[in-house]
């Protein structure tokens, strides 16, 4: 299956992409995706401890299972206001 991954702010700069399509085995969780992304992008692994994940614009836990076509955003610590 394929998911769309979106990167913002410091993570966008680390990865050098705003978004990408990422191929994953069926039944993968958010945690599996993050591990795969850390392997694909240098510098990402040390940043993941502070990252929250959002699937289709809602925050989810790391064990959440993904579906084909999901939009997964990696949300570094926010700081609006």
């Amino acid at each position, binding site marked *: 299956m394929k998911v769309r991954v979106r990167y913002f702010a410091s993570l966008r700069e680390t990865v050098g992409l705003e978004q990408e399509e990422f191929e994953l085995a069926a039944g993968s969780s958010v945690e599996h995706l993050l591990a795969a992304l850390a392997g694909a992008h240098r510098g990402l692994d040390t940043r993941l401890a502070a990252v929250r994940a*959002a699937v289709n*614009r809602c925050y989810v836990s790391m064990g959440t299972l993904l579906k084909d076509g999901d939009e997964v955003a990696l949300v*570094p610590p*926010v*700081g609006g*206001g």
Partner: protein
Amino acid sequence: MPCPAGESWERVVKLFEVTTSPLSADEVVSRLANPGVGGVATFIGVVRDSTDGRQVLHLEYEAYPEMAEQTLAQIGAEIQARWTTVREVAIVHRVGRQEIGETSVVIALSAAHRAELFDALHYAIDRLKEIVPIWKKEVWTDGSEWRSEQ
């Protein structure tokens, strides 16, 4: 321009918005349907000229706009569930480059009585900084950094 039959000419007001346009507190207050309800409390966030003693040149705000508007609306719903006298909530956050003294966010709440307005306003700004996917980069004379209060 097509003009479909039955289309309403009513003004479409967004109560929860992420925009690149300059903000006006009066304009955000005017989005509340009934400003004559009794009282309106506003919080106006303004770009600061220094942090931790470092001179800030300007800020760059970035958002995940679709989710940011959704989480702003969630904050509005949370406030109305918790403080039942709060009639309406509007939150508008500006993104993109912003200069010192410019308005980055406006939160406006209306209620028939003032008692709960200030608590609800405090909650709104705290919650915004906690869950809304918006990021702020400070640009100094000698570098830059993404800032977070977490």
